[in-house]
């Protein structure tokens, strides 16, 4: 009997593995065809001084040394602003999206379909359009925000055009967090009603339902969203490219934007490639830390 069971379970496992591989095959093929080669290429390039107009040669770790030694005037500041932006952007957007999802998950809410659509729409707008609108909203002289502040006799700000540029960008990114919100909403709707009913039977109120049921069961979704959003925040580019051109005073000179400048403004492709790999390593490290921390706070329903 035991033997049969063992054989059965191994064939199942094998079948599962096969199915898994088959399902992920498109992604694997895509990676091999489009990503693997260029990745290797960029790694190789990062050890050269390849520039658009000059012949190139291997220079070992010189590009990396130039970055880390501080010889490059912009590298460390761009690492700082990238990390600062990610550190602000992730909690701000995850929190906003989570709270909105909570509100929209209320079954007694009127006009729910409309509201869900309304909160989701910003994330399907082209970022260029969103950025242009926010540039107007945050205009120091003619913008909506300063007009409101003036009407309330509050001090105005230069928003994205002054020192407050990073926090100001959060206004826009939070506004666009509809796609995170949708994932949260889906997660919340996957929580079995029976659990809430059980709390009701035990006499628990809304707060208890949230603390003991919604929040723990949502941790895997929060974890997933945090990882995905952290990665995209560290790759911030468009805000800098469209709205601030890395300024003012390099305060939005994010690593990817700096990479773009090094490659196409300074024509230093080798160094740009090395910047790409430094960012890759940073993201790997930060994501690794998140995964490590997940065992302390992420609850999977089958772990009880």
């Amino acid at each position, binding site marked *: 009997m035991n033997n049969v069971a063992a054989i059965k379970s191994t064939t199942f496992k094998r079948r599962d593995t096969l199915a898994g591989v088959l399902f992920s095959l498109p992604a694997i093929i895509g990676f091999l065809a489009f990503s693997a080669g260029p990745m290797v290429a960029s790694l190789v390039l990062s050890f050269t001084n390849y520039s658009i107009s000059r012949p190139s040669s291997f220079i070992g770790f010189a590009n990396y040394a130039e970055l880390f030694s501080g010889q490059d005037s912009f590298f460390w500041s761009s690492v700082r602003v990238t990390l600062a932006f990610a550190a602000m952007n992730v909690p701000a957007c995850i929190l906003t999206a989570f709270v909105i999802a909570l509100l929209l998950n209320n079954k007694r809410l009127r006009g729910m379909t409309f509201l869900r659509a309304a909160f989701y729409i910003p994330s399907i707008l082209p970022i260029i359009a969103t950025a242009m609108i926010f540039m107007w909203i945050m205009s*120091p002289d003619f913008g909506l925000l300063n007009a409101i502040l003036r009407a309330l006799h509050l001090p105005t700000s230069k928003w994205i055009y002054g020192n407050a540029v990073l926090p100001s960008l959060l206004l826009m990114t939070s506004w666009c967090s509809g796609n995170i919100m949708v994932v949260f909403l889906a997660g919340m709707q996957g929580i079995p009603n029976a659990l809430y009913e059980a709390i009701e039977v035990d006499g628990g109120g809304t707060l208890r339902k949230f603390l003991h049921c919604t929040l723990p069961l949502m941790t895997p979704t929060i974890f997933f969203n945090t990882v995905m959003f952290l990665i995209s925040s560290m790759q911030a580019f468009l805000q800098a490219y469209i709205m601030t051109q890395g300024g003012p005073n390099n305060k939005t000179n994010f690593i990817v934007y700096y990479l773009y400048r090094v*490659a196409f*403004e*300074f024509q230093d492709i080798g160094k740009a490639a090395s910047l790409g790999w430094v960012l890759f390593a940073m993201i790997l490290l930060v994501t690794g830390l998140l995964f490590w921390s997940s065992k302390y706070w992420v609850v999977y329903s089958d772990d009880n």
Partner: protein
Amino acid sequence: MKQKTRLLALSMAVVLTAALFVSCSSSKETTANPSGASSASASPAQVAGNNEAQENVTLSFTYWGGSFEQPLMEKLIKGFEAQYPHIKVEGQHIPADYEAKMSAMVAGNEAPDLGYIRDFMALDFAKQDMLYNIFDMIDQDETLERDDFVENYFLYWDEGKSYGMYTAGEAYALFYNKEAFAEAGVDPLPTKIEDALTWEQLLEISKKLTLDQNGNNANSPDFDPTLIKQYGLRFDFNQGGYMPLVHSNGGVYVTEDGKFGLAQPEGLSVIERMGDLVTTHHVSPSPAEVKSLPSTAVSLTTRQAAIIMIGQWVLLDLSESGVDFGVGVLPKMEDAYSTSPGWGTIGIFKSTEHPDEAFLFWKWLCDPENSEEAHKAGLWMPLMSKWYTEDEYVNRWAAGNQAHPEGYIDAVLTPAINNFHRHPSAYVKNFAKIDALVQPALERMYLGEETAEEAMQGIEAEVEGLFEGVYK
């Protein structure tokens, strides 16, 4: 995320393939023309010989420019094609991010046959033997001599080697909204160099012309600098804004002994005074405020700025907008009057298979006989001398039309010949990287975070470390 990494990776792949192609093609070139420049200069003549066969040729040509400039250029291209039916010019208008696109094209071995190039990029390309020496091409041409052109407008990468001329003649000046002047009771700006305003006079006028939402000017005790409706003077924050004034103050960008000119007294005092316009006097918009203003030309039309300090190419947009505007000379600082051109050239790439046709097109554009419209419309000043010196020719473009107001000849045309300094981007090696340090430092000053002295001296050592010499 995957998509973004993929994009990044893809672009790297493109670059790598490009690298392969570039190295292949350059090796081909070197085997074919082992003697480099001299053989390259011989080829136009050879092609000229074959020209009688009139085989069909397609040239690719890239250029930048505003919304009025593109249709104008397309018209010029059509005119050229009509005259030379065997040549087709594929004009590609690149309105923004021109340097990045040009870099990508060159990296992808897709460089145009000829095109606008920022002078600092062209300088680098020329040094790598990627551009033709325009002198060689002019010397080969029987209909042209070097002396036909304005000497000021040639750009050099070495002794006797020019990577091209400016895209057109240009010169910085002041342009003002006449209605705003009349309302404020301010006299028209002087158009003659000898009458040029001092800095203090310009500041006084700018104060009278700076109005807040309640109509108070900057001299009024009730003036609210946080709610400005009309700025007195708008200027560019890049070299175009400060270099003519620095030159006029006896300063330079790089001193003879390799020091950073903007940190030296002559340069610094100009930078400081420009900073004061923004932070102390509130008569000029800061970089932050400029971001929410329309283009320089439009802000003059809409009276968000009463005076603008910019290159004369703005005449095209101003005359198209129909605003009633005047022209004046720049202020004069402590030394001689100075004006500067733009910072673009037309380069003919050595990778072209049709250098002769490319030169023919360049030559055609340069001659106002063909491109009179672009000159009359205010976009270009001629590159050829007689259009400055002989009244008959001068009057064909610089007077008697909507784009060239009274006083233009004194205020713009004459200084372009007599009081002319190239911008540093034309001759300072490594300019892109140096400017990447200078611009944020200026922003710190305009934001009021640092004084001019702190900003400029703070980057002095680093800038001097990036100096790799000049070609003058």
